């Protein structure tokens, strides 16, 4: 079976080579400024590390006066957690639920994906399946292809029917 039926992998290789070439040609002035920026960032990281609360705590951890407020803070945190716990929503954890909602909204807004699924000439499916084969894992697009085969609107990500 041809793993690159539409020549897409070949196109990718060529484009990648051209982009690599353009990276090699980045001039000395830009490289010099990037070097300076990197050093500034590292200085910033050291400064942030020095003033990081955890780090400051570590430098004081041997001092006896530290333990009293720390124990007080821990007690307060436990108390707050105890008071709030029964009111936590049931079902999905909040982080997971909000992520799922965000993804749903994105899918509904993804018209590109819809068009590719519904009006495409099949290239996208072939490519997506080849990608999934190459990675050895089922992909979202692979699932989309299966969905289409069953007469559904397709990819959970890109082909969800918004209408």
């Amino acid at each position, binding site marked *: 079976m041809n793993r690159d039926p539409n020549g897409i992998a070949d*196109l*990718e290789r060529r484009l*990648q080579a*051209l982009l690599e070439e353009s990276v090699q040609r980045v001039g000395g002035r830009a490289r010099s400024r990037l070097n300076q920026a990197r050093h500034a*960032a590292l200085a910033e990281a050291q400064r942030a590390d020095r003033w990081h609360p955890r780090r400051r705590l*570590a430098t004081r951890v041997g001092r006896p006066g530290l333990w009293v407020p720390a124990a007080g803070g821990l007690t307060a945190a436990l108390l707050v957690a105890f008071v709030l716990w029964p009111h936590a929503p049931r079902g999905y954890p909040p982080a997971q639920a909000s992520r799922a909602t965000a993804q749903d909204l994105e899918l509904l807004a993804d018209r590109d994906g819809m068009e590719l699924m519904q009006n495409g000439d099949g290239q996208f499916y072939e490519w997506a399946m080849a990608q999934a084969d190459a990675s050895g894992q089922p992909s979202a697009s692979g699932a989309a292809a299966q969905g289409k085969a069953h007469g559904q609107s397709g990819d959970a990500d890109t082909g969800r029917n918004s209408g």
Partner: protein
Amino acid sequence: MPAASHGDVDLSDSSKARCRALSQFLAGVEVRAFKIAQVALRHEDDALDAVQDAMLQLARAYADRPAQEWRPLFYRILENRIRDMQRRRTVRNRVISWLPLRAQGDEDEPDPIAQAVSDDPQPARRLEIEEAMTALQKAIAALPRRQQQAFLLRTLEGLDVAQTAKAMGCSEGSVKTHYFRALQTLRAQLGEPLA
């Protein structure tokens, strides 16, 4: 002695190792990040500013995160920065369009090193590559922003689909569609580049 003195507080061995790792990471991504910003902003100095801001922000806020998270985080920050600069530029252009014409000679001086005559032994081939690169950069710049992002992060930076999705703040399926669309458009515009 377990820690080296650095300013008023000692830097531990783990902090020094983290700084070294961060330095290596930044050195590894900086030129590609610059190219990505340059394609999006079409201006070298703006692109350098964007990369510098992204580096600073990563170092300031995320240096203590696991190193494998840095790459998508860095590109997420860079994309936000690029978007901010594009918005600011749009506003600035609107304001400038109301002002009298700028004086001639405001443009940046050409870089003398870039202008120097090349002693390349294969000028014809180089010219061919040069033309192909120019055409590619124009075609990428004309792509819709999300397609451009997906294409550059996947092809130039080599992020996988999951990392690209994190960097773009969207689902993996969306990355695939944006990326595939970009490839289709580029093939339609460029044919078979440097066949």
